[in-house]
């Protein structure tokens, strides 16, 4: 019986540890463009099967196993609300106002998705994300372009030396039935899993897709004050948990001291 209490206390500390990791990750990504804050959802653990059956008022049931066995991490859910827009004056920065992810291709050929619109040119003039993933469809900027502009509908326009303007291509957006099902693989990139559903691909500004705002970036949607409140709550829960563990330990010590 005492072991059940010790185990429940341990699961509680473990769950708070996971919770703290998620909070720390949110705080670390305060300045990450397009970052979506996450929240650990904890859940109680199922009590073991009952010993004495379920009839009669619960308050008289002595079933030893009726007490829950602690808590665990059930899921990490993301808040997909829009982050604040930050002006940057860089022509290749784009923020997505509304739904959708930019589509990119990873070096290993997989398709990934991102809300981080800090685009740049690679050595061959192709548009890439800040981590070097190629924007899909591929858009190549000619070396003689004097200025670049991305319009609301995702068209990438280059100013040419002769004074003419040329459309280099159009950025695409994708959206998922369940954006929580996208796996974060680092560098602001998301890779779909089966849980995300089939992506719908469309052009910015079309129905259901956000417009692109050039010379702006979407900041992280992390609310510092909220995260700090959660941090304090998790810390306190952890520290009271360790107190309780010590109390249990002392009680067991006293049990073993019964025989002097």
């Amino acid at each position: 019986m005492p072991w059940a209490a010790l185990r429940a206390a341990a699961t509680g500390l473990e769950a708070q540890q996971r919770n703290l990791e998620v909070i720390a990750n949110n705080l670390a990504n305060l300045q990450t463009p397009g970052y979506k804050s996450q929240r650990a959802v904890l859940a109680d653990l199922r009590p073991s099967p009952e010993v004495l059956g379920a009839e009669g008022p619960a308050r008289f049931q002595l079933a030893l196993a009726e007490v829950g066995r602690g808590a665990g991490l059930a899921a990490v859910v993301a808040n997909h609300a829009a982050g604040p827009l930050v002006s940057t004056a860089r022509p290749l920065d784009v923020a997505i106002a509304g739904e959708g992810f930019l589509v990119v291709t990873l070096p290993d050929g997989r398709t990934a998705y991102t809300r981080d619109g800090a685009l740049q040119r690679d050595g061959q003039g192709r548009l890439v994300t800040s981590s070097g993933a190629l924007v899909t469809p591929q858009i190549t900027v000619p070396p003689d372009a004097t200025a670049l502009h991305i319009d609301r509908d995702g068209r990438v326009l280059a100013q040419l030396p002769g004074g003419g303007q040329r459309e280099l291509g159009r950025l695409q957006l994708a959206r998922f039935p369940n954006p929580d099902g996208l796996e974060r693989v680092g560098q602001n990139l998301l890779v779909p899993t089966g849980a995300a559903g089939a992506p719908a691909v469309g052009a910015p500004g079309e129905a259901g897709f956000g417009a692109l705002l050039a010379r702006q970036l979407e900041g992280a949607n992390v609310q510092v004050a909220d995260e700090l409140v959660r941090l304090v709550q998790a810390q306190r829960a952890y520290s009271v948990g360790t107190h309780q563990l010590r109390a249990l330990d002392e009680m067991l010590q006293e049990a073993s001291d019964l025989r002097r």
Partner: protein
Amino acid sequence: MIRGLYTAVSGMVAAMRRMEVATNNLANVQTPGYKQDRTASATFGEQFQFQLARQLEARGPLALATLALGPQLDLSQGPLQRTGRALDVALQGPGFLVLDSPGGPRYTRDGSLTVTADGTLVTSTGAVVQGETGPLVLPPGDALAIDPDGTVRVDEAVVGRLQIVEFDPAQEFERVGNNELVPRGGTAPQPATATTVLQGYIEQSNVDLTGVLTTTLALQRAYTANQRAVQQQDELLARAATEIARPPS
């Protein structure tokens, strides 16, 4: 004399049992929608009568002992925390969300919802959330709104309404894990009348940290006191055995 020994030990056992409940409560201090267990002890007489009524074999009187009672669910409202997440809902009032499961409906107060690949509204552990006319499937859209009465709208088009139910206040529940409860005796709930749905909020656990810490300390001291009582009586018994019967020298 021997009976006193058992009485003191019953106090230790009851304290340890209640400690189990306290640790489980504390482990769930950050679990959304979690309802704490309250514990109390009852005299042996009370429990004995109950067991007699169930025609269990009597094992002899022990009128002075104490026994921990089965935990009682405290269904009081937990504090609401703002998350700003469109798929988070908190219930204010006594209602429950209804979840589909192979073994019949289950109920939860944890509104950390998400959707599946085809847009079906589910809990964070994947249980399908019931609307008034079956599961709710969200079409693609920009703005998800959930009204105080549970109506779910995507881009202003009504998708359905969350099924919110209320139970008799005396209803007892069984925990099945994943923040889900099942009513004992399979009671059917009533549609909610006194519950409002708040989007962008989460109901936190109603476990109170200070309360748990106080309970822990009290139980630990109770345990110690009973342990001392056992030791005292052991000592008295030892004296009775070795000194009273000592023949005069």
